[in-house]
């Protein structure tokens, strides 16, 4: 956990995109935490239905006369919660299955890998819909459903990495010194693939936020709660397109995209950090550009005077 935070911090230090992403996320976390205290009651009918954006209601009102700004702000909380919770649960489950499979190998690996591969090819959303339809509606059900349908990718990635770490000296040394299996997996293997599970967690959060909104849009959430998904559910239910009231779905969608984009940028920064090759020729390209040269296929001849550094 702490290693993960340190990694994110150093990604922020080095990557511009990661900083932009973190900035976006920080903004929305702030909105989720304090925003609801500053806006009107999102469920109350405050004005005439379907008022376009104006001075009283900056983002307009819904088909029920509720304030769209309030709904967007309050909805942030639940969507971020679902993303965060699912990201953590999926990473835990994926690590449990993936690391176990990779560490023990043999039959354990065969069986777990088969399970992982089967879950990978099953279409997630239809399965999630069937599951969600049977469970009592609400955010916890959605987290459970998305965890169950989304863990396989993480497990696969972590298994592959465990396989390659399994034969490293430090793991072998731990085995010889008689440490327990669970301890080796937790203390030796997991900390050595921090970047991988952090990036899996971020990726899962992105997926979970989108998928939860999709499920709620279908009406599989608790439609009496205010979330980004139910906002869009009610927008469609109140015939937002037919009445041309774009303001009932645009703010929520933009916020969703900005959060998703923020997470993507963050992961991009992490990638660059763990995959130094990605950023290796940036300085090279800059030097060529400074000398007025375009990168060609052959190693450039760039005398220092021309390079001017």
């Amino acid at each position, binding site marked *: 956990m702490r290693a993960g935070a340190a990694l994110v911090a150093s990604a922020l230090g080095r990557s511009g995109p990661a900083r932009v992403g973190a900035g976006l996320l920080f903004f929305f976390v702030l909105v989720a935490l304090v925003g609801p205290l500053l806006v009107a009651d999102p469920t109350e009918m405050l004005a005439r239905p379907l008022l376009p954006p104006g001075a009283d209601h900056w983002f307009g009102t819904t088909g029920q006369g509720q304030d769209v700004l309030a709904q967007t702000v309050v909805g942030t909380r639940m969507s971020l919660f679902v993303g965060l919770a699912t990201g953590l649960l999926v990473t835990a489950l994926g690590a449990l299955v993936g690391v176990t499979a990779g560490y023990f190998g043999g039959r354990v690996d065969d069986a777990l890998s088969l399970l992982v591969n089967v879950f990978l090819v099953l*279409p997630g*959303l239809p399965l999630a819909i069937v599951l969600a339809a049977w469970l009592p509606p609400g955010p916890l059900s959605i987290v459970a459903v998305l965890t169950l349908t989304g863990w396989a990718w993480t497990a696969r990635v972590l298994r592959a990495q465990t396989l390659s770490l399994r034969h490293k000296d430090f793991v072998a040394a731990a085995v010889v010194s008689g440490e327990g299996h669970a301890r080796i997996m937790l203390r030796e293997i997991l900390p050595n693939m921090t970047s991988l599970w952090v990036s899996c967690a971020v990726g899962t959060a992105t997926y979970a936020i989108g998928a939860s909104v999709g499920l709620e849009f279908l009406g599989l959430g608790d439609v009496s709660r205010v979330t980004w998904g139910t906002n869009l559910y009610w927008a469609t239910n109140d015939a937002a*397109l037919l009445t*041309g009231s774009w303001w009932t779905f645009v703010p929520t969608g933009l916020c969703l995209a900005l959060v998703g*984009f923020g997470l*993507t940028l963050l992961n991009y920064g992490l990638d660059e950090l763990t995959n130094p*090759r990605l950023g290796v020729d940036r300085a090279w390209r800059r030097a060529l550009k400074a000398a007025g040269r375009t990168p060609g296929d052959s190693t450039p001849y760039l005398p220092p005077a021309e390079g001017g550094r």
Partner: protein
Amino acid sequence: MAFALRRLVFYLVAAWFAITLNFAIPRMMPGDPATTIFARFQGRLAPEALDALKASFGLTDAPLLTQYGTYLGHLFTGDLGLSVAYFPSPVSEVIGTGLGWTLLLAGTAVCFSFALGTLLGVLAAWRRGGRLDAILPPILSFLGAFPYFWLAMAALWLFGYTLGWFPVRHAYGSDLEPGWDLTFLVDVVRHGLLPASTIVLVTLGGWMLSMRNTMLGVLGGESILYARARGLAPRTIMWRYAARNALLPSVTSFGMALGFVLGGSLLTEIVFAYPGQGYLLLQAVRTQDYPLMQGIFLAITLAVLAANWIVDVVTMMLDPRIR
């Protein structure tokens, strides 16, 4: 050939797993499924519909194994029970009406998006840090961050309702009789264009970035250096040595992403009232038509598994190492 067979066995196992999951889900849920269903439909359904519902789940007092046997038996004769929403139509019949449209819309959009995204990825990686590589990825990642259905709503509102460039619902005009004549086909294209475009727009960035990154990996490899050392033309290196090799992992990930993309395109269908599986799924959710919901899950799963197997066979033909 052994590879294709091995994969086929795997997909059969996966199919069996999905079928069993389908059987297990109602029975694993908190509470007794029969009671859940009866409670939800109390007074909303005719008694015969309720009986049909009960029968379609095989929810009898018989032991689980017997129930499972009955379930499998029904499945193999194509009997998925009766739909509640479209009572008394059998679920298999209801699904049959939508499967073609889903395959048409999602299939076309996904294949086109993959082809275009892959091409863009090749170009971006080849001219790394160039204009294409600098501009497109952030834009497409941003677009990819929208939920499929939201982008569909925005496009429908803008190009359908506001500008009136495209029809706003369904797969063809209500005044047309489905058939293989030109008027009908043109109308189908006209109706499909906007939903397909939104699916392409959302998914394009993913394909492009994944191809770009695999291609960068290949470009950094020895075989490219070797090709350059031999004085091969840049064009040959780009396509025959880099793109061709980078395509292999990309095709594999295409198979894996298929289920995910299909899920998203189901929601797109809903926005456009496109008469495919997604639209049926919405009806099923709205009316709590469990048999239909599970039938759709099975149908989509089997379609995805079949598509994955085809992808595997294609990979096999592209890669001599597993041929």
